[in-house]
């Protein structure tokens, strides 16, 4: 199974190479991978049907006890089959739909990566790997929604989808950590056995809310539903694959996966039906007021996702069964309908349903696929959608919490769903032929293979519900329920309440469809309210985010070196000072032997520092700084650290060399700050100095942990064959640190090089003040720029010192 996941990433990596070899046939060649994966997963059916769970473990980082375990049970298998089967058809479909597109290869790369991530998501046993794959699906979805990246609205929709799903992902991560804390393991197999413990877990509610935050954003539940219709900016193959059949179901998958461990509590049985039913109704309602064929389908996907959440919330045996059946049914007909929508758009040149009509003679094969899938969407016999809908009504009728609420909304949603099916399927193909931007023609076979096969499966499973039940639905629902469910699916249940509800919804839906145009005009009254919906909240939030970023940049990162230093130093003084005094109180240990020559050195140090800020000449300041440096080097040498001393001297020397190189470019050595500023700066400096002194006093006195230097001194010869401990530490004991530091050094060099070579007026972000600081343009503007240059040129020096 690990191979099944990695093969997708591998193939994605080699796609650009294959692209040159196969050209127009590339999509067909790539489709071989999901096709063979589908065959492999199908071969596991007998094993899973017998109630077994396939577990494959691969050691990953044995040192840390992390392994890459993948499990296959009924639920995973259902998802894996949907992903690989629909993936196959989507690749075929895309080869024709995006034929000749300049970025087609990139499309394949991202689509294959998505497929692999999605498979990883549904097969992972560890919460951590599941989360990684979860985020990968968000990222690939972002790249696919924004595939037409020159279109601003596509970019906006992509970003919206990313921010919402990744924002939810953060909540999910927190929820997963809580879950693992509660269950004592990151392995899903073990978590599922800890149901009792988890339901009694004191942090159950926060954990559940965090997990729901992740699942609801991913699965577009109200009030996060709005990103999904916007994601229709993606090319149609993406909409049919990610945004109807697979990715948006990841949230529902997670809830289903965790149902045996977390379900059945009051919170679960209240929150899920509440949001599920609301989403269901909002989706159906928004669908019927749209006119774009993809928007219609997208909102009806929102409705389906709401249904799935509702069923999970109800949590009875019937509901589990309905969940699996509805999941399967929806993926089949919605995948097919999206591909039909793409074929219509492709051949007529419009996405607007009112502009299409009478295409039955021009696109007969497409029509057949559309009608079969549409009947399944409407939930009419003998399609599988009917079986699923009957089960759904039965489950809602058998629910206990919020029953009247959920039943009303479910009925309304079902009725509107039927109207949606009518609008999507009947309007474009029947009635009088309308003139469209392009002359309509039948789609070619790669674009028809998918919808026809999926529609055929809807019909087959509808006619033989027992087969679909035992092969896919029962194993999946058993996995969701956590116990064995045995129940025969059938098309005809006799005349009962669900059937009556179905008939009633059919009548209402039919009426809405007949008067669709009038209905839309009526509903338009509500537009001002809808405009203030959750999406407006999203934009408000984004504006707020930008405002905060703007404010904090102005305040904290305004490009003034003095400001940065003040903030950094005061933070340091505040945090460290607080901890120091709170933990160790003040230590005044004056019991130190001081030699005369040490006193002289320190006196020199203090005197030179004083000169630096009193002097009126730059050379004087530079020379005094040099004295400070050499005095420090002297102290190093006095306390037998020759390596440090040598380094310090060399760095001082090089500083002088660098300074000479920029000396003539520096502005005049004036005094720009007011006395108040200088006093403030002096106070900050004094506070820092005092704190450092206190810190040193404490470190001399308080020995928290035994010093490691003795160990290093002892081991230097026997382990590292070297007598110079400093060097042994640098290149052997702690060489990983040094390795990191030389990379920092290299980056600093590249940064300086870029600053010197990119001319401020032509560089990107040329108006930025910082760009003009280090080397002003060739015109002699140097004298005007503020005297921050010393500090800027000195920065690389600090980089080097830290490496020593």
């Amino acid at each position, binding site marked *: 199974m690990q191979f099944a996941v990695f093969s997708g990433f591998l193939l994605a990596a080699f796609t650009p190479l294959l692209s040159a070899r196969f050209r127009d046939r590339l999509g067909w060649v790539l489709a071989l991978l999901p096709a063979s994966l589908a065959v492999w997963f199908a071969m596991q059916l007998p094993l899973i049907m017998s109630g077994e769970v396939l577990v494959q473990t691969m050691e990953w980082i044995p040192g840390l006890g992390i392994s890459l375990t993948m499990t296959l049970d009924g639920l995973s298998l259902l998802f894996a089959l949907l992903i690989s089967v629909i993936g196959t058809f989507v690749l075929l479909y895309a080869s024709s739909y995006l034929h000749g597109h300049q970025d087609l290869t990139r499309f394949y790369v991202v689509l294959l990566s998505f497929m692999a991530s999605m498979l990883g998501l549904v097969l992972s046993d560890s919460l951590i790997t599941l989360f990684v794959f979860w985020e990968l699906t968000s990222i690939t979805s972002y790249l696919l929604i924004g595939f037409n990246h020159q279109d601003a609205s596509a970019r906006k929709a992509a970003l919206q989808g990313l921010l919402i799903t990744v924002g939810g992902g953060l909540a999910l991560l927190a929820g997963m950590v809580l879950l693992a804390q509660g269950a004592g393991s990151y392995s899903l197999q073990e978590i599922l056995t800890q149901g009792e413990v988890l339901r009694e877990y004191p942090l159950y509610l926060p954990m559940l809310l965090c997990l729901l935050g992740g699942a609801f954003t991913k699965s577009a539940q109200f009030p996060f539903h709005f990103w999904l219709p916007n994601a229709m900016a993606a090319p149609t193959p993406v909409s049919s694959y990610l945004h109807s059949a697979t990715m948006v179901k990841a949230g529902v998958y997670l809830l289903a996966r965790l149902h045996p461990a977390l379900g059945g509590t009051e919170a679960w049985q209240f929150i899920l039906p509440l949001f599920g039913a609301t989403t269901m109704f909002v989706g159906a309602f928004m669908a019927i007021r749209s006119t774009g064929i993809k928007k219609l389908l997208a909102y009806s996907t929102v409705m389906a996702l709401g249904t799935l959440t509702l069923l999970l919330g109800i949590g009875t045996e019937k509901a589990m069964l309905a969940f699996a059946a509805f999941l399967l049914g929806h993926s089949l007909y919605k995948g097919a309908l999206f591909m039909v929508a793409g074929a219509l758009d492709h051949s007529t040149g419009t996405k607007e349903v009112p502009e299409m009509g009478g295409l039955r003679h021009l696109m007969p094969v497409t029509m057949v696929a559309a009608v079969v899938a549409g009947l399944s969407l409407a939930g009419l016999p003998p399609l599988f959608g009917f079986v699923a809908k009957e089960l759904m009504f039965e489950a809602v009728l058998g629910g206990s919490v919020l029953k009247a609420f959920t039943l009303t909304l479910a009925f309304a949603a079902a009725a509107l769903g039927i109207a949606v099916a009518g609008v999507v399927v009947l309007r474009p193909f029947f009635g009088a032929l309308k003139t469209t931007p392009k002359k309509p023609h039948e789609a070619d076979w790669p674009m028809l293979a998918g919808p026809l096969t999926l529609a055929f499966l809807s019909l087959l499973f509808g006619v033989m519900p027992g087969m679909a039940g035992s092969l896919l639905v029962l194993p999946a629902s058993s996995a969701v329920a956590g116990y064995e469910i045995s129940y025969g699916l059938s098309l005809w249940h006799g005349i009962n309440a669900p059937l009556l509800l179905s008939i009633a919804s059919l009548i209402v839906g039919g009426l809405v469809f007949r008067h669709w145009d009038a209905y839309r005009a009526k509903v338009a009254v509500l537009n001002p309210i809808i405009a203030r919906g959750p999406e407006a909240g999203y934009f408000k939030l984004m504006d707020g985010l930008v405002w905060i970023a703007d404010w904090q940049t102005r305040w904290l990162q305004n490009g003034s070196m003095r400001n940065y230093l003040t903030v950094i130093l005061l933070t340091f003084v505040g945090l460290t000072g607080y901890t120091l005094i709170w933990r160790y109180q003040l230590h005044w240990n004056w019991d130190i032997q001081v030699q005369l020559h040490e006193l002289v050195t320190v006196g020199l140090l203090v005197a030179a520092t004083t000169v630096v800020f009193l002097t009126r000449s730059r050379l004087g300041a530079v020379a005094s700084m040099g004295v400070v440096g050499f005095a420090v080097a002297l102290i190093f040498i006095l306390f037998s650290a020759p390596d440090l001393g040598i380094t310090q001297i060399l*760095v001082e020397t090089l500083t002088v*060399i660098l300074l000479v190189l920029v000396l003539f470019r520096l502005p005049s050595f004036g005094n720009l700050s007011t006395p108040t500023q200088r006093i403030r700066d002096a106070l900050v400096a004094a506070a820092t100095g005092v704190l450092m002194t206190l810190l040193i006093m404490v470190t001399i006195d308080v020995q928290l942990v035994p010093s490691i230097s003795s160990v290093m001194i002892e081991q230097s010869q026997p382990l590292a064959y*070297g*007598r*110079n401990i400093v060097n042994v530490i*640098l290149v052997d004991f702690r060489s990983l640190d040094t390795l990191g530091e030389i990379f920092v050094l290299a980056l600093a060099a590249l940064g*300086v090089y870029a600053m010197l070579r990119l001319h401020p007026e032509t560089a990107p972000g040329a108006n930025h003040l910082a760009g003009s600081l280090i080397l002003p343009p060739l015109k002699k503007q140097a004298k005007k720029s503020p005297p921050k240059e010393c500090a800027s040129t000195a920065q690389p020096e600090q980089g080097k010192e830290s490496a020593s």
Partner: protein
Amino acid sequence: MMKPGTLILYAAARFLLPLQLIFSLFLLLRGHDEPGGGFIAGLVAAGAFSLYLFAFGSEVTRDLLRIDPRTMIGIGLLFGVASAFPALIHGQAFLTAQWWPIALPGGAELKLSTPLIFDIGVYLAVVGTVMTFVVALAESEEA
């Protein structure tokens, strides 16, 4: 700013460069046992080249260096990374030191090892970094 150097500077730079470079190599190689090591040696070498640059200008110094200082940084990093891998062959943790001592005639011993390779990497990275600064600054000055 790069006015033609004085005679003393010319002569000093010419004679000091080889001496300083030999000294930097000496510091590099003895670093494991005595004060020295790649970092210090690199600074000394960079100082030597900088002196040369002051006397003869950046163009001549570039020719003397043969390779671009930025390339030198890259080579240094490669050395550093390369020294991490021999340990993996022996199944030890990343960056574990490996020693291949060679006995030389006269009782001396040449201690070849991955820390030495690593130190050479540090040396090159330091020389490259400082020379990138100095050459870039000098050239923007000359331009």
